[in-house]
């Protein structure tokens, strides 16, 4: 429970469905001095969650995950930028903090399932395996960040709110007189505490961002960048170079600390390589298959052919049409209609 409307309604629904419910809240890491603005575990959020739990008359415990969160998620975030990627720490948090560290605590407490306020659905396939489906509400769907779940974890998972559209969730919340009903949705990374990630890097890992050259594909120097972490693939604004035509960030080359830019027509790429691939069904398909792929949380699905490599631990994705912003560090997630097939972290593209 986060104190927000989604996990609060999840608890309400589970209680209505007859489960014996225990509330758990993660105490995550905050930058020293920013504990009161961290998105997910401010004293205020904790008070809200406690109030919801008290209203439902369920036990409520706070689990300290500060150190493990800093070591895994925050470090991953900094390391990713240091490699010239645009890391997605929510994936790591879901894999290692929520669905490993917290799940272990829940199981130790004697729980049969762990439920979260994620907008996804869980479905039992005829063969006994558990499938991960998109949420009923496409605008709220969070299946992208949960593609990291394995069968072992999915058999323990419940996602009560994925079956409803967000307005229904808000209605349930106000009907249950949850004081969280009017709270805004959280969006940014929790540990940025509402700040820009660039400021976070300047404060916490200034050594990974140093000025370097901005070059075109043919190698001519066009200007100076302030540090690769401050740029993202496809970015147009804020490059600080004048040019007859708009220039876009094409690539970030960490080895030479150069930012490669070019015109819009050079931006598109149609192939990517993903590593650390998780297959929801537990194993990779035998050979290449056609599917829909999402390359960012908010990206549209794109038609592609996916080829499992190295026994499925990696995958090559060939898109039917080039995409503008394939970004190393983000995930490529494979969909078959409503079902998530799996996904992995993008390491290169061309």
């Amino acid at each position: 429970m986060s104190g927000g409307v989604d996990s609060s309604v999840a608890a309400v629904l589970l209680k209505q469905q007859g489960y014996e419910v225990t509330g758990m809240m993660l105490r995550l890491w905050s930058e020293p001095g920013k504990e009161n603005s961290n998105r997910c575990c401010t004293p205020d959020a904790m008070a809200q969650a406690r109030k919801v739990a008290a209203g439902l008359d369920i036990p409520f415990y706070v689990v300290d995950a500060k150190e493990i969160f800093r070591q895994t998620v925050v470090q991953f975030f900094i390391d990713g930028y240091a490699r010239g990627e645009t890391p997605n720490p929510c994936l790591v948090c879901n894999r290692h903090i929520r669905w490993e560290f917290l799940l272990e605590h829940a199981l130790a407490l004697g729980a049969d399932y762990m439920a979260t306020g994620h907008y996804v659905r869980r479905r039992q396939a005829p063969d006994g395996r558990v499938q991960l489906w998109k949420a009923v509400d496409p605008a709220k769907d969070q299946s992208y960040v949960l593609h990291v779940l394995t069968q072992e974890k999915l058999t323990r998972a419940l996602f009560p709110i994925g079956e409803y559209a967000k307005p229904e969730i808000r209605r349930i919340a106000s009907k249950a007189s949850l004081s969280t009903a009017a709270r805004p949705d959280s969006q940014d990374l929790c540990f940025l505490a509402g700040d820009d990630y660039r400021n976070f890097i300047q404060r916490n890992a200034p050594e990974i961002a140093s000025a370097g050259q901005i070059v075109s594909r043919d190698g001519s120097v066009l200007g100076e960048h302030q540090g690769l972490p401050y740029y993202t693939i496809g970015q147009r604004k804020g490059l600080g170079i004048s040019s007859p035509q708009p220039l876009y960030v094409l690539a970030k080359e960490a080895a030479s600390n150069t930012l490669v830019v070019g015109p819009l027509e050079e931006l598109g790429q149609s192939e990517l390589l993903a590593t650390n691939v998780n297959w929801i069904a537990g194993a990779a398909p035998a050979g290449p298959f056609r599917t829909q792929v999402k390359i960012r949380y908010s990206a549209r699905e794109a038609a592609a052919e996916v080829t499992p490599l190295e026994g499925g631990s990696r995958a090559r994705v060939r898109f039917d049409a080039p995409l503008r912003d394939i970004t190393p560090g983000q995930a490529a997630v494979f969909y078959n209609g409503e079902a998530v097939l799996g996904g992995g972290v993008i390491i290169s593209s061309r």
Partner: protein
Amino acid sequence: MDRIYLDHAATTPLDARVLAAMSPYFSEIFGNPSSVHRYGQRAEAAIDAARETVAIALNCQPDEVVFTSGGSEADNLALRGTAAALAKGAGSKWLLTSKAEHPAISRTAQQLAVRGDFALEWLETDERGRVTAEAVERAICGETALVSVMLANNEIGTINALSEIARVCRPQGVLLHSDAVQAAAYLPVDVQALGADLVSLGGHKFYGPKGVGVLYVRKGTPLVAAQTGGGQEGGLRAGTENVPYIVGFAEALRLAVEEREPRNAHVRPLRDRIIGEVLEGVPDARLTGDPGSRLPNHASFAFKDVDGNLLLTLLDGAGFACSSGSACKTGNPEPSEVMAAIGLAREWGLGSLRVTLGMGTTPAQVDAFIQALPALVEKSRVIRQR
């Protein structure tokens, strides 16, 4: 699920006899004790009687009993009141206390030191959490104003030899305060025998209500009111007296004194079983505090490489309500000051557990606890070490 309450050092349930004594004073006999009329007189008579009852229990005079809102307020009044009274006095300006004290003492002392009302020196505690008379003797000097040493420790149960400390303070004219909030449930609090000038008590630790306490103030002790207003409580604690709670406090204390022997006899053997079985049944476990000189209902442990907060969560999940020196409901565990004061390394200090028994504790409950604990300690150990 049958829930088993093993956290009587945190608080105790109200004794039904105490509730019965209190209940007329909410709406039937509701007068303000300061009022001239019959309503006021009846309420005043109730607090006068309560004050006498407390005085008998503490072996002092009724006008040496100041009712407060609880143990913390009594502690605050003792420290702030003497600081205010002695601030103008030439010379005596040092406050001696230890880091093993309840935060109502240690935090108040720190604040007084920051403000310059008292100079603060921390008394040494030994590895059992004791402050010895020798430690006080080493620290005391001609400029010492006040020594504050608790009678029994809330986290680790250790009992201090207060009368020996008083023998150091007395001849030098140094005031002695003792927080006896934990002790009063099982130990005699005879202020003459203890030799203290100021003693704090809290009602809810011995089956009385929350929100009421006492500060014993030996006649002649320089003390300035921390809360001013109408001159209640001998001018030391302003505010209309909380009549039902004062009546409840007195009745609970009277019962604690009257039933001290059977209460001690009930909890001590059960507590001894817990200590013996836990030390035997759980690897990497140690008793914290003094093995001999400790509260008879109090068992406290440290487990190596255990997250005390997680252990409490697992215990609660299994139906056992306990406490920990590092417990914090906000999931922000740090070893307590007490664990640090007794020299426990961090890998031990985070894994503390306090088990405190009460009159309702049964042998069957103790058996269930002893049976459940080892596996839960191991579980929290495994998760922590991932």
